[in-house]
Each structure stands twice: as C-alpha cells, then as structure tokens.
C-alpha cells in the first residue's frame, strides 16, 4: 500500500477520472430529481435556474473528463447504470424538504470541489509521465474545480436569500 496521496499511473489516473464522472452524474441526476420532487409552490425561477445550470454544468464536466479517459485508453463509465443506481437509491436518500434540496445541492458541489482539489494535488505530487498532456490535464481539472467553487457560492447565496 502507499500512504502518499499522489497519482502513480495512467490506470490510477483513469480510475480517479471515472470517479469524477460518477460524482458529476450523481449531481446531475439528483438535481433533476430534486426539481421534479419540488411542490409547485416551491418552484421559484431562481431555484429552477440553479438546478438547470447544475445539470448542464455537470454534463459538460462529465464530457470533458470522458475525453481524457478516452485519451488514456481506459473504459468508459457505464453512465446509464449510474443513472439508474442514483434513481434506485434516491427514494431512501432524498431530501425531506426544500431547504434539504438546496443543502444536498450544496453538499454535491462541495464534494466535487474537494475531489478535484485533492486530485489536482495528487497529480502535482506525481512525477509520472502520463499518457495525456499534463498541462492540459491540470488546466481541465482546475477549470472544473473553479466551476464547482462558483457552484458552491451560487447555492450558498440562494440559501442566504431565503
């Protein structure tokens, strides 16, 4: 085993990016379900916009991660299977009220931010020559991380306004 938080091979990098894809898919599907589960009276435009943007943004992040995974010759994540797993578990993990929806969204974005932040550090700590361009990899991950930070801010702002 290794105690070091660094990426040591292409295979490990691909696996971590696959986890990123899953996290994005979880955010995407849950945001969509949250919106569907909101009572009509709670469907404010601001919330609709926020959840819509979250779905779009996660889909874009997922595509960017998938293109790197593809360049590493690793297998694609079975996205449809993830979608159905999130759906199956949603009933037992769904937020109970509107504030819970926003909190879940906040938690999803914060978790994604933490994941990318740790992954960037683990890539920076590594001296392995990856099968993809390191500068492009880090640039992509940093951009996604910043988008997650903006997402956290947007949800927090909406929560404050309520």
């Amino acid at each position: 085993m290794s105690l070091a938080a660094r990426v040591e091979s292409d295979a490990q990098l691909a696996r971590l990016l696959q986890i990123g894809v899953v996290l994005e898919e979880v955010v995407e599907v849950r945001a969509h379900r949250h919106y569907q589960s909101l009572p009509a009276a709670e469907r404010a435009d601001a919330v609709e916009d926020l959840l819509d943007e979250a779905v779009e943004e996660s889909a874009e992040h997922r595509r960017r991660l998938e293109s790197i995974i593809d360049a590493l010759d690793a297998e694609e994540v079975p996205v449809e299977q993830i979608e159905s797993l999130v759906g199956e578990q949603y009933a037992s993990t769904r937020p109970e009220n509107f504030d819970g929806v926003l909190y879940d969204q906040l938690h999803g974005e914060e978790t994604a931010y933490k994941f990318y932040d740790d992954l960037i550090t683990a890539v920076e700590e590594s001296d392995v020559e990856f099968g993809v361009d390191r500068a492009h990899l880090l640039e992509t991950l940093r951009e996604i991380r910043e988008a997650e930070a903006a997402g956290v801010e947007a949800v927090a702002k909406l929560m404050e306004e309520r």
Partner: protein
Amino acid sequence: MNTADQYLKAIYLVQQIEAGPASTGQLADRLEVSPASVNEMIGKLEERGLVEHEKYKGASVTREGERRATDAIQTYCVLERFLRNVLDVDDFRAEARQLEPVIDDTVADRLDMIIDREPDCPDCFDAEADACGLLEIESD
C-alpha cells in the same frame, strides 16, 4: 483519506488482531513505512489526543481516535464496494488500497449513495485481511 487517518485505521485494526496495543514494528510492516516514520506520526497523534502510547507496549486509539478509525474503515469499504459493484473492477481490493489516500470521506459518502452497503458495515471488516469481510475476489 489523509495520512493521520490511515495510521489510526492501522492502529485500530492491529489492536483488534492482537487484543492489545499496536507495536511500532507491526505498524511499520502494515503501512510499509519505516519505524522512525511510525514513531514520528504516533507522537503527533498523541499530541492531538487521538492515540495513547505506552513505552515498550505500543499505541492504542483513544475514543476520538477510534471514531476516526472506524470512519476511515468505512471510507475504504465504500471504495471497495463501489469499485466492484459499480465499475466492475476485478482487483477491486488492490485498487481500493491505491485510491484510499486520494479519496476524502466526503467523496466516499457521495459514492455511498449509489451502493448497497450492509447495515453492519464497517463492523464486519476483516482486520487480518485488511479488507471487507463480505466481498470475495472471484478466482479465475
């Protein structure tokens, strides 16, 4: 999971196997690090109130240390089960160990939303095998 939590997990598991404190040598073997590194980290964990250390006997986790150790075991269990059940990884155990240092417990909590973990997890963890006691690696 940070290095401190990996140490707490190892100390807690060695304690379970030995029914007593974890020695520096046992921890060094388990974590594949030098005895000097183990002693340095034990000193830090002791200062933070997570570990108690008795000279010539070894280290034991405090109540707070145990809480963090079981959280760390749970994070590892989520990873094993996620890799095996969702990503269909054959050698999920080896990969879980590789990924463990990079995956934070908040990330594991999110992955936990899509896997079916047993209700008594992580109490069913196999300390000797250092792996989930319920998931078996399929032999060829």
